[in-house]
């Protein structure tokens, strides 16, 4: 075989500029979820935070306050156990556990797989309680209308700059466990300033599911968004 005498070396490489998003598959499914939700005008809210910042307790409190006004359901992700869904069901609303089996975040595919378990026609507000983790869940669009991040007063007020992407992609920060403020070295002002340096549009509510501080404001915000979604 005669070798080509051109200047192109043997094993010339051919390049394809692709610019494909690594999470293309996820974003494709997230779009499907968005369309499903639009059909029934169901508001979808993705709740994120570190583990132990009070997501499930807030779900219980929110269900208690709003279940007579609107139809609410929750899907909750954890690495193992059905515990959180059991706690939420005790308030009388539908809750479904997604056990990720070790995966540190929820992906759109996991949400889409369980969507048919819900009678979306009759649900005004569907919460996704994400896996407790401020890192990985920030990268995965679940087709939500709003992303709400809890930031507990027991966690320390330095978190927004440590986990900037979560705060950049959130619409609302709930400073949770505010009833503990007298006992912990935590400044709501400092955490709000840091978070708004990352995301100037971030809404902030100081909230406690125990003392019920801010719960009214939170519920009003939800009702307003449910109304907006219904157009």
């Amino acid at each position: 075989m005669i070798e080509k005498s051109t200047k192109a070396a043997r094993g010339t490489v051919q390049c394809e500029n692709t610019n494909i998003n690594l999470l293309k598959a996820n974003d494709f499914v997230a779009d499907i979820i968005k369309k499903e939700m639009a059909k029934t005008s169901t508001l979808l809210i993705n709740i994120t935070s570190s583990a132990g910042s009070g997501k499930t307790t807030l779900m219980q409190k929110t269900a208690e306050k709003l279940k007579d006004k609107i139809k609410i359901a929750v899907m909750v992700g954890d690495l193992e156990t059905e515990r959180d869904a059991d706690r939420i069901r005790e308030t009388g609303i539908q809750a479904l556990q997604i056990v990720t089996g070790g995966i540190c975040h929820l992906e759109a595919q996991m949400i889409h797989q369980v969507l048919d378990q819900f009678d979306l026609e009759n649900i005004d507000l569907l919460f996704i309680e994400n896996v407790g983790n401020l890192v990985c869940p920030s990268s995965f669009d679940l087709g939500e209308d709003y992303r709400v991040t809890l930031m507990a007063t027991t966690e320390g007020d330095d978190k927004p700059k440590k986990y900037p992407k979560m705060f950049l992609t959130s619409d609302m920060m709930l400073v949770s466990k505010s009833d503990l403020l007298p006992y912990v070295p935590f400044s709501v002002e400092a955490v709000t300033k840091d978070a708004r340096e990352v995301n100037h549009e971030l809404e902030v509510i100081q909230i406690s599911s125990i003392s019920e501080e801010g719960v009214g404001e939170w519920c009003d915000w939800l009702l307003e968004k449910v109304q907006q979604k219904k157009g």
Partner: protein
Amino acid sequence: MHETSIVNSIMRTLEHEFESEKLNKMKAIHLKVGILSNIEPRLLHNAYSAYHLTNPGYHHVQLHIESTTLKIQCEVCNHITDVKNYRFLCDNCERPSKNVIQGEEMLIHKVEFND
């Protein structure tokens, strides 16, 4: 866990985009990942090595990862700012901005194939 699932997702995406004949000639994968993407290049390289243990077909394919810094472009004055210390403020007019133009990407930027 996270890096492993990202490597799987990259390989699945490529298998979806290109014919298997072409994939057999794949030489290198170039990724572009922003500082905000939560992808740590070193860990991704490790996960990629681990991937070959169960999928030896691609063991000769090199992985290149380019990290990108964080930049915003002001919606008002169009000035481009390198974001330092996660302060999303325009250098020029001091207005806050969320208009990230670089630093969030997670892209399969380029794929090389042997001729």
